[in-house]
């Protein structure tokens, strides 16, 4: 069965793909005529196949992805047109194939020596830490594969008006999201979907038998909000402050009779960040206070309450050699007095170990998340061959385990091994 996703942006995105791909060689077209420049082509191709071992309804997954773009400039103006194609498949009793065409970066930018004004769909990724950035609230989340990919792959362009102003070591970044485009979610039948109405399970809550057979209703919001971020770098300490009033990209599911209603509540987020090099490591920290974190009481009352998130991490190279290690401690607390279905506090230890060898022709990686207050484990070992420029061939595993309200617990039947190839052009 082939189905076009709800956010496929039908005519626009399809037209972009057709227009950009038609007649373009893989390496693209490029021209630079004095101050004018133009380049177009295929940016990325990616294929992957996976075997799921323990899930009763799924035995494997498949992915085919392509991205195309055209970028140009003339005088003080720049423009970008971009689109992506994704085909996700799942094999087994709950098999499906879903193809989607979505927009990439599509913007018009004006710039001078100190200012950039960008209008259109663009990537906005605030924050400094890896994987779980508390102040990264502007971007549109891509949850089709939940945590399987690294952070940049889990973010998509968002329609925005953005003003960036540089002054000495300072930068002011002001973003307005005139429309709200919610997170890209997995297919309803996907083993990665955070809602399982067949078994009565919800990510973050665990088993909820009463929701078996519930209908899931998507949200329909208008504006997305906006925010301002001030950062400074250049000396021994980089730091920044931000304030945002934005809708959360990922849906929260409000329990109503017979229906799980997706909502994206507005929240005011005040953030602080810093980055410094000390003791042979690069230290990164982010903290954010949020005015409205959605929760559900045990009486199924929907509430929003204040919350606080903090991540502190260090990146270093043991023995001053090739291996790069990133270790982070993360904590979340929701300030709610009532008894709620979610965890009020979450503490994790996560990170990545990356070891290139054979002059960078091979790379071994391990990403991990370990719960500190609840049993929660995610392991992602990966071996990649990168000996051909622009290409990566890999084999990877994703292993989950944990208590029922944790990420590892919710996906503990989804252990899989996958092989893949990707190329950037």
């Amino acid at each position: 069965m082939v189905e076009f996703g709800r956010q496929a942006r039908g005519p626009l995105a399809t037209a972009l793909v057709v227009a950009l791909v038609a007649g373009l060689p893989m390496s693209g077209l490029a021209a630079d005529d004095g101050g004018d420049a133009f380049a177009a082509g295929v940016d990325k191709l990616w294929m992957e196949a996976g075997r799921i071992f323990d899930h009763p309804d799924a035995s494997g997954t498949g992915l085919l992805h392509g991205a195309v773009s055209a970028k140009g400039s003339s005088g003080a103006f720049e423009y970008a047109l971009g689109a992506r194609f994704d085909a996700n498949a799942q094999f087994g009793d709950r098999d499906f194939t879903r193809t989607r065409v979505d927009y990439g970066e599509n913007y018009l930018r004006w710039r001078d020596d100190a200012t950039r004004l960008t209008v259109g769909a663009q990537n906005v990724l605030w924050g400094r830490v890896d994987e779980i950035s508390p102040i990264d609230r502007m971007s549109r989340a891509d949850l089709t594969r939940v945590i399987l990919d690294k952070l940049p792959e889990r973010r998509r362009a968002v329609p925005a008006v953005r003003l960036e102003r540089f002054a000495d070591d300072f930068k002011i970044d002001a973003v307005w999201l005139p429309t709200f485009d919610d997170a890209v979610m997995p297919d309803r039948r996907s083993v990665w979907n955070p809602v399982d109405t067949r078994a009565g399970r919800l990510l973050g809550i665990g088993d909820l038998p009463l929701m078996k057979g519930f209908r899931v209703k998507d949200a329909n919001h208008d504006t997305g909000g906006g925010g301002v971020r001030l950062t400074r770098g250049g000396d021994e300490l980089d730091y920044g402050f931000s304030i945002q009033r934005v809708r959360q990209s990922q849906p929260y599911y409000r329990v109503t009779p017979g229906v799980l209603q997706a909502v994206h509540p507005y929240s005011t987020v005040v953030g602080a960040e810093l980055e410094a090099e000390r003791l042979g490591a690069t230290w990164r920290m982010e903290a954010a206070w949020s005015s409205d974190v959605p929760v559900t009481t045990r009486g199924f009352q929907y509430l929003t309450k204040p919350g606080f998130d903090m991540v502190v991490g260090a990146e270093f190279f043991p023995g001053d050699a090739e291996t790069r290690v990133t270790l982070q401690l993360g904590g979340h607390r929701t300030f709610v007095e009532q008894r709620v279905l979610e965890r009020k506090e979450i503490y994790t230890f996560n990170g990545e170990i990356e070891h290139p060898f054979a002059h960078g022709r091979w790379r071994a990686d391990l990403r991990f998340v370990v719960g500190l207050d609840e049993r929660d484990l995610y392991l992602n070992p990966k071996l990649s061959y990168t000996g051909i420029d622009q290409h990566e061939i890999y084999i990877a595993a994703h292993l989950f385990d944990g208590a029922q309200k944790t990420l590892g617990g919710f996906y503990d039947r989804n252990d899989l091994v996958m092989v893949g190839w990707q190329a950037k052009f």
Partner: protein
Amino acid sequence: MTTTPARPCGRAWHMRGGLVGLLAGLLMCAQAMADDAGAKLAQRVYDRADGNDASSAVTMTLTEEGRAPRSRSLFLYRLSGASGEVSTLIRFTEPADIEGTGLLTLDAADGTSNQWIYLPAMQRVRRVDANRKGGRFVNSDYYYEDLRDRKPAMDAHRIIGRERVGKIECEVLESVPVEASNSVYLRRVSWIDPASLLPMRVDFFEKDMDKPTKRLIVDKHEQVKGYWTVMDSTLTDLGSGHQTRLTVNRMVYDRGLPARLFGSKALEEERTEKEFRP
């Protein structure tokens, strides 16, 4: 950038000249047997004129027997301040998987450094460890230490002979770190061309004082706007045979690069830097 492949006590290639130059800097080591002549030669090499600023287009080719070569293209900019501070910006343009990646290094006159990298995939500027010495730079045979400025006083130098490298009669300068912890090398030996003050060959010793592990050879050097510049060099890992060749395709000195080229905007916005490409 003076692509000086090896400046015996020298400044990192990115600082003063070219990838090559950086290496040169590291090479000098002399146990506790420094001599005045060696120290003076090392200082002359370090002080060699290389302009107030430099811009270059460089190709880095990685080769290994039996395997397809891998190539990286980059632009390198260096601005030397009046007080001894040095700013360097590197922008990779090929291959596609690292295209747009930028590396900004600000070296203060007191020897402290700060470094940031721009990762296009994340569209983020991140601080990185500027004091890193080991580890291979973009999988080449160059270590991060090879890219950093190295003051002559960090090594003890002595002249250990004269020897020809090709047609050039060179002075052979040995350099040994004064503090072993400030270098990944136990010792470096450089063959200095007295005319250009460029090292024509550098041997690097990492684990054995008598057995080099890497060798840098300058294949071509010439004067650009009056400044001696390494145009082509090869660094060989003597154990594996893996080689890193640096070819300077274009080099421009003293064009008045502005300070704004060495700031966060130019690092994260390729188009700002593009205006200054040689």
